[in-house]
């Protein structure tokens, strides 16, 4: 067996050959290429977006594709420090009691001009009021669109927190809260809090096409929407009246390639300029290529194994602990993450300021696990399902593989696990209906606030909206995280979060598995792409360096 692509000598030769031919082709065709193609950027993403309105979603794939490209937020997060920066809001004041937030908007911010909408005025306070009222007011004409489901905002209890959003003047927006909330500003800076156009909303209302607000988006971001073909591509063009520096690429295409190997292939053949989530297994291989750069950044995320705590036997804490003890996480880190992740002891990554360093590391102890099972009354084990998500995510690059490893581990303690997987949309729907026994899934943070890991994942309100995969509702835990929000003092908040983490590691509604690094492979001619540790990716400043 001497296949041409196996030996490195051959690869090197082929690469050289290929570079030569590519160079000649490039130099020959370059001047004739249309501008939209020449400066166009192709981002190969791992899945289709669920909507074009970030308010309605939580999935990282959708956020990456729409949030930073189409919209702006009142506030932005500095990628390095996690500090809040002015976005559409130039400045803001907080009242002394922490209940009233007043924002001054940036003047002359233009909405997108597209084939389906021509704005007649720049951004005003009405747009901000329209945007947030949609989430909280049931009488808002758009509230019920898409099933009245605003997962992120519901998980942070937005409707309960914000009493009203008003516009004292065209450039002033006032948020009145019902209680102080130290995570409020951070939440406004998340990718979910994108600002929509009220004028577009009125136009749609007049024509009766309410659903188009979420499928044919209008925002103020660096790119405007052009077309979307499900499972094929999303096409954006440059927003010519953007208030910041204009986007460098004339055209931005999200090429939807769910398969890893195919995405890598497209990177190597230069069909893709940027590739989301290269396989960690191949990182060393990729970095050897002269035409590809690998970017690495720490990311706030956690991959975990959540038990459906509303179902027997997972409502028994001993069973949950036993299952957690039975899993060999070292093997998982090697086989699934290829060493590019750290073992997780808490849902919170160690880089967060609220991380509890005193937590004892999760043990691998099948003997103790068997004892616990016997104590819980399952001496002979039981049968269960492990739901493995069919897509790869930062926090879990291969859930099916992980499930196969865990299946073998669980067999050691007499638990017969079968692996269940559906196509991603059905999977999420069935998960939302809590049909699972246990699931391998995870979470990527949207902002630097630790609350972003607790409330959307494990609170009672999240259990109702269906983002709490452990289906876990515990008064004690909810009390910890609620108290942490009431105070602005970071020391005090930390002590609450520490206690919450301690409580979680005892109750084990989910087993945290790993915090992984985020990687991105880009064509080395592309410059100016930054990975944001808190969610979405910004592509507006990407330039192709063509010689």
């Amino acid at each position, binding site marked *: 067996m001497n296949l041409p692509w196996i030996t490195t000598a051959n690869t090197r030769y082929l690469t050289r050959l*290929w570079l030569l031919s590519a160079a000649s082709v490039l130099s020959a065709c370059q001047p004739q290429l*249309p501008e939209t193609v020449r400066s166009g950027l192709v981002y190969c993403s791992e899945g289709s977006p669920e909507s074009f309105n970030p308010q309605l979603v939580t999935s990282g794939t959708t956020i990456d594709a729409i949030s930073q490209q189409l919209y702006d937020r009142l506030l932005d997060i500095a990628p390095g420090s996690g500090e809040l920066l002015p976005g559409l809001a130039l400045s803001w004041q907080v009242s002394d009691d922490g209940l009233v937030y007043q924002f001054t908007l940036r003047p002359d911010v233009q909405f997108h001009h597209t084939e389906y909408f021509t704005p007649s005025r720049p951004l005003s306070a009405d747009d901000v009021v329209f945007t947030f009222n949609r989430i909280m007011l049931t009488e808002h004409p758009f509230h019920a669109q898409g099933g009245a489901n605003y997962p992120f905002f519901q998980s942070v209890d937005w409707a309960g927190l914000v009493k009203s959003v008003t516009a004292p003047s065209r450039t002033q927006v006032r948020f009145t809260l019902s209680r102080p909330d130290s995570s409020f500003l951070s939440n406004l800076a998340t990718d979910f809090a994108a600002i929509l156009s009220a004028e577009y909303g009125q136009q749609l209302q007049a024509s009766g096409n309410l659903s188009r607000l979420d499928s044919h988006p209008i925002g103020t971001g660096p790119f405007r929407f052009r077309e979307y073909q499900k499972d094929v591509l999303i096409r954006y063009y440059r927003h010519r009246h953007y208030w910041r520096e204009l986007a460098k690429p004339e055209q931005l295409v999200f090429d939807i390639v769910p398969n890893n190997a195919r995405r890598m292939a497209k990177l190597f053949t230069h069909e893709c300029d940027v590739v989301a989530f290269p396989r960690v297994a191949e990182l060393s291989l990729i970095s050897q290529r002269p035409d590809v750069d690998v970017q690495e950044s720490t990311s706030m995320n956690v991959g975990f194994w959540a038990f459906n705590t509303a179902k027997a036997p997972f409502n028994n804490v001993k069973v949950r602990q036993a299952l957690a003890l039975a899993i060999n996480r070292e093997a998982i880190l090697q086989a699934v993450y290829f060493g590019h992740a750290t073992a997780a002891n808490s849902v919170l990554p160690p880089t967060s300021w609220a991380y509890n360093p005193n937590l004892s590391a999760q043990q691998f102890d099948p003997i103790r696990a068997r004892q616990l099972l016997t104590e819980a009354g399952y001496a002979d084990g039981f049968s269960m399902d492990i739901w493995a998500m069919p897509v790869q995510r930062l926090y879990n690059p291969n859930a099916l593989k992980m499930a196969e490893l865990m299946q073998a581990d669980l067999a050691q303690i007499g638990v017969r696990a079968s692996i269940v997987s559906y196509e991603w949309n059905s999977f999420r729907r069935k998960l939302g209906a809590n049909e699972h026994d246990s699931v391998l899934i995870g979470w990527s943070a949207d902002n630097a606030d630790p609350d972003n890991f607790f409330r959307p994942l494990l609170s009672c309100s999240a259990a109702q909206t269906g983002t709490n995969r452990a289906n876990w509702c515990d008064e004690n835990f909810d009390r910890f995280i609620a108290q942490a929000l009431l105070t602005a003092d970071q020391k005090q908040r930390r002590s609450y979060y520490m206690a919450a983490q301690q409580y979680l590691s005892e109750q084990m509604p989910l087993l945290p598995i790993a915090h992984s690094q985020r990687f991105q492979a880009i064509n080395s001619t592309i410059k100016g792409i930054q990975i944001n540790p808190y969610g979405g990716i910004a592509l507006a400043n990407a330039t192709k360096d063509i010689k």
Partner: protein
Amino acid sequence: MILYLLRRLVLLAFVFIALSILAFSLGYLFPGEPWQNFSGLRSASSEQLAQLTTLYRLDQGYIAQYLAYLTRIFSGDWGLSFASQQPLLQEMLTLLPATLELAAYALFISFFIGIPIGIIAAVKPDGVLSKLISAIAVTGYSIPVFWWALLLIMLFSLGLGWLPTAGRIGVLYEVNHVTGFMLLDILLSDSHHQQEALINALRHLLLPTLVLATFPTTVMIRFTRDSMLDVWEQSYIKTARAKGLNRGQVLYRHGLRNALLPVIRQIGLQFSTLITLAMITEVIFSWPGIGRWLIDSIYQRNYPAIQAGLLVISTLVISVNMLTEILHTLFNPLARKR
């Protein structure tokens, strides 16, 4: 001849009725409620449900339901796709041209390469060239299409970097959907960069066509060769040679026409296999055709789509089958008698 055509049409109608019954019964056989599988709605209010029940006559017997189903099919109401909630018929009409384009080019290749090579192989059946052709042919129809596709991608796309790996055209080229046939659409567009787009589309087309054409071409080579050899044994050929015609004349006047008759039929019979292969090829090359869509549908448990896909693809295959059979009869008066 007219009588023959009429008989064929009656047969065609019969087959279509059987097909529609099969598609209709799938609504019941698939998991989920029949109204879900027929309408493509995942959930419905009690009001909607009542409306659907009347529309689909779910409260009546199977025959009434089937007739209602037939009426809907003919009026173009094929229900929605579970996955996208778009009307299925429209969705398929945009996808079908991509599959047809691919299958048509593959068929052309198999025709224009397979038949001449088959004839060459038949000229000297024991020669080295003929042996070589036979060896290539048996390799060609033994190779699993998905593996073959991967090998070609490995070599031409990743190894040599000559050709792209997926899609119909570079994603940065925006081509308006007019006919759905990519090359035609590019020619119809009034862009200044028609030529670049055309070259780009051709580069995308090359590998999938090559992969898809492999099986039919090799089958065609073998079939033509066998058919030629069979005809060569016939007495009328011997008569013609005895009359003093040279080999070339005999081949051209008597051999080819008779040898190619069964080949025409073969196209119809191979079409079903071709569609199966096209589905796999589409998956590997991310070709946005109906085959890839159907396979995605099964991952998504998109039952209305599978039902509709069955109707469209089978209709396509049956029509091609029938067409080649009629063509065959047209060229072969002997077959009309039967």
